[in-house]
């Protein structure tokens, strides 16, 4: 297997691991998100229920006060008995009756300016009116005002009613003055928005006031309905026939209160977003997993891309990668190759890092010449390449020592270590009888230092240091043989 195939296999393994880890991490991430979202939803829901309840209670107080105020203001007409007992008989008004009517109109006009009344006047059985009864109200009532008001009173002394006209609907208060006169005052329903004060400023809070027929008297601007429409049926269904309740579910927090006159207040907060996740947990889980995986791959891609692009440019001439005579990696590429192998190695893998030195190499070179010493190295490298065939790195360093990085990974770490021992014992035998020279009359002594990745180091430099330390030990022991690095070697120090 050549070097490219070897690298491809490692990259493939690395990518498989990344996919598996990313999938697991994304699933954990999604589960955590769902947990947080659900927790947040529950808190939001509880807060929304409290909020709508408080708002509805405040509304009740304000509306009661508002209606009481209108009712009490009507008492102003009893201040002058002449007005309260006035009942023209008709059909046409007499001069005195016209005069009294004008006085009443002036009086009521003055009295009504204090508030935002739309109407403030009296309807008489003759069909006439006094005070301010606007054209809009006359149009809405239609026909004889007195007769219509009498129908609305339906025998009662006083009554509330609503004249629906979209945005300018009117809330009317009717009160019988005497047998021929009915007092009518009204306000635009929009004025209810004023009494809500700051409550209407909450964008998420919606409010409806409905009459006994579920028609909307007033609603906040943030709903699509308008006065006169029927309240959305979903709200009525949620109440299930109950009144004065607070309801909270995944869609809505709703509070209702009923008034004595049959009107009902609905205060509600619709769930903005997260609550929907509760109902769609599995789908959302899958979506989050997918999205986080996608994001993770993008991030990993960017990082790997950046790493490769930032790597120092390697010479383009491939021949520089291998020593032409030994056919092993040159010093620079040897370090590069081993560093790459470390980087993409699987977690839990076991590798051997070894440095082989021909004992007395310098002396051989000096006495027998460069060619001879080179021949010695070729012999040694041939043996090593043969022994460490496969996806392993065999190279030479600057000190004319041969370096090997070899994979012995196994699920059983003890077996991996034994394999290393066995392999190097076999190699040691091969190294005992290396003969060089024209007549093979010169036997080489080879010493080697071995350390294990990742036990003794995580980088090329660390491993090289430890292996060199062991090699030094081997040289000290008698000038040949293979020595494995042990912690005690540290004390001896390394030569580099």
């Amino acid at each position, binding site marked *: 297997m050549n070097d490219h195939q070897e690298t491809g296999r490692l990259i493939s393994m*690395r990518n498989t691991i990344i996919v598996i880890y*990313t999938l697991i*991490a994304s699933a954990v*991430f999604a589960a*955590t*998100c769902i947990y*947080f*979202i659900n927790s*947040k939803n529950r808190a939001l829901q509880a807060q929304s229920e409290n909020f709508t309840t408080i708002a509805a209670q405040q509304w009740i107080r304000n509306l009661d006060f508002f209606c009481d105020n209108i009712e009490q203001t009507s008492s102003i007409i009893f201040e002058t008995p002449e007005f309260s007992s006035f009942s023209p008989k008709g059909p*046409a*008004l*007499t*001069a005195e009756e*016209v005069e009294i*009517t*004008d006085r009443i109109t002036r009086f009521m*006009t*003055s009295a*009504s*300016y*204090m508030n*935002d*009344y*739309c109407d*403030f006047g009296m309807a008489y059985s003759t069909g006439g009116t006094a005070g*301010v009864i*606007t*054209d*809009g109200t*006359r*149009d809405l009532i239609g026909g004889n005002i007195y007769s219509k008001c009498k129908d609305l009173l339906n025998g009662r002394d006083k009554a509330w009613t609503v004249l629906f*006209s*979209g*945005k*300018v609907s009117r809330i009317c208060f009717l009160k019988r003055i005497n047998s021929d006169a009915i007092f009518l005052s009204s306000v*635009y329903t*929009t004025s209810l928005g*004023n009494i809500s004060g*700051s409550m209407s*400023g*909450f*964008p*998420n809070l919606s409010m409806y006031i409905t009459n006994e027929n579920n028609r909307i008297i007033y609603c906040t*601007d943030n709903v699509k309905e308008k006065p006169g429409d029927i309240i959305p049926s979903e709200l009525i269904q949620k109440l299930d026939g109950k009144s004065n309740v607070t309801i909270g579910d995944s869609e809505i927090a709703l509070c209702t209160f009923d008034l004595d006159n049959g009107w009902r207040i609905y205060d509600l907060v619709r769930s903005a977003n997260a609550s929907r996740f509760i109902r769609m947990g599995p789908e959302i889980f899958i979506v989050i997993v997918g999205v*986080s995986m996608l*994001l*993770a791959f993008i*991030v*990993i891609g960017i*990082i*790997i891309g950046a*790493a490769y692009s930032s790597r120092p440019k390697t010479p383009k001439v491939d021949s520089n990668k291998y020593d032409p005579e030994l056919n092993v990696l040159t010093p620079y590429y040897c370090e590069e190759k081993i560093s790459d192998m470390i*980087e*993409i190695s699987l977690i839990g893998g076991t590798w051997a890092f070894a440095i082989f030195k021909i004992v007395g190499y310098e002396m051989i070179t000096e006495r027998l010449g460069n060619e001879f010493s080179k021949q010695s190295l070729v012999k040694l490298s041939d043996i090593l390449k043969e022994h460490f065939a496969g996806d392993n790195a065999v190279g030479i360093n600057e000190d004319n020592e041969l370096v090997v990085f070899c994979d012995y990974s196994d699920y059983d770490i003890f077996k991996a270590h034994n394999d290393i021992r066995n392999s190097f014992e076999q190699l040691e035998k091969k190294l005992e009888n290396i003969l060089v020279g024209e007549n093979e009359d010169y036997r080489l002594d080879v010493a080697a230092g071995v350390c294990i990745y990742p036990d003794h180091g995580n*980088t090329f430099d660390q491993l090289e240091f430890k292996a060199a330390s062991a090699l030094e030990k081997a040289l000290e022991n008698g000038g040949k043989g293979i020595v494995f690095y042990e912690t005690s070697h540290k004390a001896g120090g390394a030569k580099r």
Partner: protein
Amino acid sequence: MKLRKALLSLLLASAIGLSACGGTDIMEFGKTEEISFSWWGKDVRHSYTIDAVHMFTNMNPDVNVLMEYGEFDAFQKRMDVMFAAHNECDVMQINYDWLFRFSPDGTGFYDLNELSDYIDLSNFTEDQLSYGMINGRLNGISNALNTQTCYYNKSLYDKYGLELPKTWDDLFEAAKVMSPDGVYPTELNRKAAWMMCIAYVEQATGIRCFDQKGKLGFKQDQFRMLLTFYKRLVDEKVTKAISEIDKTDFENGISAGAVCWISDAGYYCDPLIEKGMDIVVGEYLQRPDSLIMGWYAKPTSLYCIKRDVENPETAAKFVDFLLNSEEMAGAQGIEKGIPLSKSMLEVLESNGMLKGIQNTASQKMISTKGIERVSPCLENNTLVSAFDSAAKTIEFEKTDLDAEAEKLFEAAKASELNI
């Protein structure tokens, strides 16, 4: 090492993602600017104005507009009280005479010239802006011009074989034909009766009731003539008496005509037009020997800004929206008459919205020569009320005309202005 960095980056991204899930929701409130806006009108005006205000607040989410509105009669009294207490709204639609009542020296309202960076005044001519100018200060800007106009149910006139009236005498002749059936040739409410009688007397005498400076021109004799003419209109059944006016009479065919502001034309005429009646705009009634025209135009209303408004720029932006915006033009149409603003007019023209009885009446006002700018004194509510009171009194013949003319003359003198 690099792989480790990659894993660290992934963890960091995850942490950011998780922190996003647990983000804080912040709901801000009470940070909006608030301006108040008051106007009067009928329901149709309320409805489209509320819509327009919502459009404005949608375009300016940091601005909240508080609305106060009502129909004219009660609203006018409320304005008196608010001005007396200096509780008026930031932006106001006001009637022409209020300009002079509440700002006689020009300091009662904000000088809109100072806000010309926000209000596009180039949409108006100098003459149009002069309606709101007092002592060189631009107190208000008129949105349209208005005049009392005669509308007739031509279907009903045709039924009686009558031509539409062009002179006062034509009205009296029509009354002779229609009154046996209980039908009146026209219907004059309080304001219409007042302006019609003024026109009649001015045409007859050539004297203006008030000149443009606010100085009274009529003497007691002219007011006696005015009340006499009114009594004749009622006695000869040209119109019902003011106290008997029922706005449904025109719709029900009891009145064959009505006189009202252009801005109210739709309210009075549209129900009849919907019933298939032929409702037409009539001539401005004249005497054969008229010395002057006697008919007046006035701003339908003016937009003003409170003199010490808290947020003048915001108020000015809102006034510009009301006067010049495409949105307001679309909502308002010609409910107040043909708008004076060039930009608003362009919108209405391009959208084919210049149509209907109000448009016809507006075009007639524009094309009729001799219609003058009304004196704000004629709009004075106290004076109109004095006329109303006198009209009702002579209706029942409780007192002589001279006494009522004197009272009216005194009320008119009290209404004089020094413009």
